[in-house]
């Protein structure tokens, strides 16, 4: 019983501490982080409403998911999209000054924003491209299809 109370107090205390340290006041995020000497990562939000799984789960286990997927794909030819690195790169593209997606050598790259903070090196992008390729191609095709449709509709108008 004493143990449980102690644990509760400890948990509550650490949560409070977590809130104090990791929740910068609204509007002064970066400044607050700098002032406390801890550069809190602020990854850019990905496309769409939510990630392919619960965000907290992805944050904790994305490396395992990717590692599992890579073996499935390379050895068994399983090419599902949910945990595909290609899809991560595609969805989490960060645009640079030239409004083109940045590569991994740019510090604002989605993966780097946290990995720099955690000092964990990524080897993925020594072989894999860190910029989206699919969206560009799909975008082009989609635009082409839209233009064709527009032309068709215009031609049909009396």
């Amino acid at each position, binding site marked *: 019983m004493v143990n449980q109370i102690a644990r509760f107090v400890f948990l509550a205390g650490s949560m409070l501490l977590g809130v104090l340290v990791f929740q910068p006041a609204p509007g002064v995020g970066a400044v607050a982080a700098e002032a406390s000497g801890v550069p809190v990562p602020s990854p850019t939000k990905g496309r769409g409403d939510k990630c392919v799984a619960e965000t907290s789960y992805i944050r904790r286990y994305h490396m395992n998911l990717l590692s599992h997927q890579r073996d499935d794909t390379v050895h068994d030819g399983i090419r599902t999209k949910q945990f595909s690195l290609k899809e991560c790169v595609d969805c989490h593209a960060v645009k640079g000054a030239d409004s083109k997606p940045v590569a991994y050598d740019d510090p604002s790259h989605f993966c780097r924003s946290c990995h720099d903070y955690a000092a964990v090196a990524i080897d993925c992008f020594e072989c*894999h491209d860190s910029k989206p390729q699919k969206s560009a191609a799909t975008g082009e095709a989609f635009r082409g299809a839209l233009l064709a449709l527009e032309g068709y509709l215009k031609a049909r108008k009396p």
Partner: protein
Amino acid sequence: MSQRRDDQASAQEHSRRDILRGAAALGGVALAPGVTLHLIGGEAAARPVEEAVSDAHRWGMLIDAGKCGDGCQACVTACSEENGWDLDARDPTDSQWIRKVELRDPKSGAERTLPMMCQHCASPPCVDVCPTGASFKRADGIVLVDKHTCIGCRYCVMACPYNARSFVHEPLTDQKAHAPRGKGTVESCTMCVHRVDAGRQPACVERCNDAAGGAMLFGDLNDPTSEISRRIAKYATARVRADLGLDTGVYYRNI
């Protein structure tokens, strides 16, 4: 009783053939005269993405050296464009997934040219010698390098009798998303595994048929009714260094 079972089997076989024929007819939809939309791939119908590859198929190629143009580099260019390896300003140590080889019989002076790449052996020496298991053969016979486990020792480069493998010496950027390549790993022809998984043909075969002599044919060696199996059964074909008994997946004609 036995006769009846045979009749039943025969009837079933007939109906199966009819269904297949029907499917083949459905496969191509004529949009306009001369324009056909292929909905179902004939030779390599796409497997569902969540399904693991099986040994039901064994992918192979038949290359007719008689139709392979002297000086034609269509397959080499197509491979380089598809997989992102550098074709221009070549260094002797640069990667080369496919190359044109010229043969000349010194007695008669007869000359032939043919594309040479990974022969996708059924008993690949590169897999035998790999110390990490990075070099492996997929269930459908495609021989690949798992670059996640490759340590770049290059034993496989030495072991391959076809000189099909290359080592990446320099850091690379802007690789193709479907063909990751990186410094310190060995690579070779993947028989365009990303295309095969999507029910398409390898880039070299497609280009050769679209824009060159139509010397290359891709298909399933396990299926006796496939175009490639029928041609191999009909014509005299050869495999390079057949004496090694590697049971290669690439067959040649007229060499």
